[in-house]
């Protein structure tokens, strides 16, 4: 298994380590519920060094990315990012990702760890057939970056303890507190440049910090020290999953895959049909107009029962001979104390308040469709 630069830090903290897509990563340090609640109530720190990074440069970069991705990169000025999806010709998702405009015709993409190889192969094949490939430079930058995510209501207070000065590149701001959601800027850490974005995957306010391995190790330690009096805890993949499920953020391989479109997944706002031609456009346009045969819903169990988990069957209450859908993500919500999840159902059952049943170990338990996100800060 691969290890990030923070592996020794995880071992030192007593983390339980698991294999996540070929990476030896911490699933928890103390308990998933404690780590989850720390993020909701104070702050949590995650190692996200396993994610992939790609840089795209050149006079044709904007045109190429607008053909490759569903969202409109022309909206991105220097130091601004957007959530986007990369689809193949049939509209199925190759990956979901974040893309940031840097300075000039230069972009920085953050892609899923489990899809780094597949994404690069896809992007390189598209670049090779691109008419303006002479004005395009695509580069796998994953080995250049380690990264951490600081998430929770106290994250700005903690970040400010370690980053006091103005930004030095991308979006020009006087201090980290001036970063708006989706902004990305270069800041200085002990004379070395790191990038900080106001982004995250937990449903809380937070920041993601990208830099060279040695800097990230120092930043990890500094943040934990500065944040301890404010309740900051190191958090593993277990809490990352319960947090993003409560926030209804998709996870590639669960809500998204090559046989699922962004429209089925309810991500139509990230598909800019009016920007012109892009890979998968015709299928996605037809779906936006004519509908899809299934829709992603969020649900909550309505009584105390076993935990709903991925792959479990979803039924309509009654005597149908077979289930009508499948759970894609499911867990016991630490914030709500109930089972929650997401799954695909026929569109007529996708309205909030629709009653469903989830089959768990041969028995069916009642659930109800809820609006996303399942958990919202009061």
């Amino acid at each position, binding site marked *: 298994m691969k290890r990030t630069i923070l592996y020794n830090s995880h071992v030192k903290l007593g983390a339980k380590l698991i294999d996540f897509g070929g990476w030896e990563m911490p*699933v*928890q340090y*103390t*308990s*998933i*519920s*404690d780590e989850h609640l720390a993020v909701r109530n104070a702050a949590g720190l995650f190692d996200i060094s396993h994610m992939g990074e790609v840089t795209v440069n050149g006079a044709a970069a904007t045109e190429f990315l607008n053909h490759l991705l569903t969202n409109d990169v022309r909206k991105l000025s220097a130091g601004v990012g957007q959530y986007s999806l990369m689809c193949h010709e049939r509209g199925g998702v190759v990956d979901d990702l974040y893309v940031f405009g840097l300075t000039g015709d230069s972009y920085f993409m953050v892609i899923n760890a489990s899809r780094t190889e597949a994404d690069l192969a896809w992007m390189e094949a598209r670049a090779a057939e691109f008419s303006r490939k002479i004005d395009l430079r695509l580069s796998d930058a994953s080995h250049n970056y380690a990264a951490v995510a600081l998430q929770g209501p106290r994250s700005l207070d903690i970040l400010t303890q370690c980053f006091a000065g103005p930004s030095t590149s991308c979006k020009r701001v006087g201090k980290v507190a001036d970063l708006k959601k989706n902004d990305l800027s270069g800041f200085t850490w002990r004379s070395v440049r790191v990038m900080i974005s106001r982004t995250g995957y937990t449903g809380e306010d937070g920041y993601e910090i990208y830099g060279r391995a040695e800097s990230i190790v120092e930043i990890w330690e500094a943040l934990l020290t500065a944040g301890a009096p404010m309740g900051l805890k190191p958090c593993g993949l*277990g809490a990352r999953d*319960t947090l993003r499920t409560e926030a209804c953020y998709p996870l590639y391989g669960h809500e998204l895959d090559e046989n699922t479109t962004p429209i089925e997944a309810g991500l139509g706002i990230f598909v800019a049909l009016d920007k012109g031609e892009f890979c998968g456009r015709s299928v996605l346009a037809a779906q936006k107009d004519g509908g899809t045969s299934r829709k992603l819903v969020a649900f909550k169990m309505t009584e*105390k*029962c*076993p*935990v709903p*988990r991925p792959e479990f069957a979803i039924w309509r209450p009654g005597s149908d001979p077979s289930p009508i859908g499948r759970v894609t993500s499911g*867990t*016991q919500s*630490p914030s709500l104390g109930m089972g929650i999840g997401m799954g695909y159902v026929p569109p007529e059952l996708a309205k909030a308040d629709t009653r469903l049943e989830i089959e768990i*170990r041969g028995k069916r338990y009642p659930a109800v469709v809820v609006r996303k996100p399942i958990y919202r800060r009061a």
Partner: protein
Amino acid sequence: MSANVPAELKYTRSHEWVRVEGGVATVGITDHAQHELTDIVFVELPQLKRQLKAGEACAVVESVKTASDIYSPAGGEVLETNKAVVDNPALANTEPYAGGWFFKIKLSNPAELDSLLSAVQYTAQVTGA
């Protein structure tokens, strides 16, 4: 970590403990098991009067990440189940040998207990000694 392994109990290889009093066995999961599972969020116990066999999967304990089967250490009829741990599954983490017990069975063949592990033997198994 040094798990708590009370000397007067008997143990299974699958991390259940047994307390025997006059032909009735009380069963729960060990401190080692709860420590491995961490946050226990749901406990499913066998129906009353169900006839269990030694080694039969008869209950489920769920943490946030996984569902684990609990195996009956001996054969017998389910006499009682612990409502407190069903209502508050975290008891299995905080009091695995006391308030977090799971169920009681009327032993059909008390001699089966002889093949269970002693505290010393169970400790050796979990510490790999």
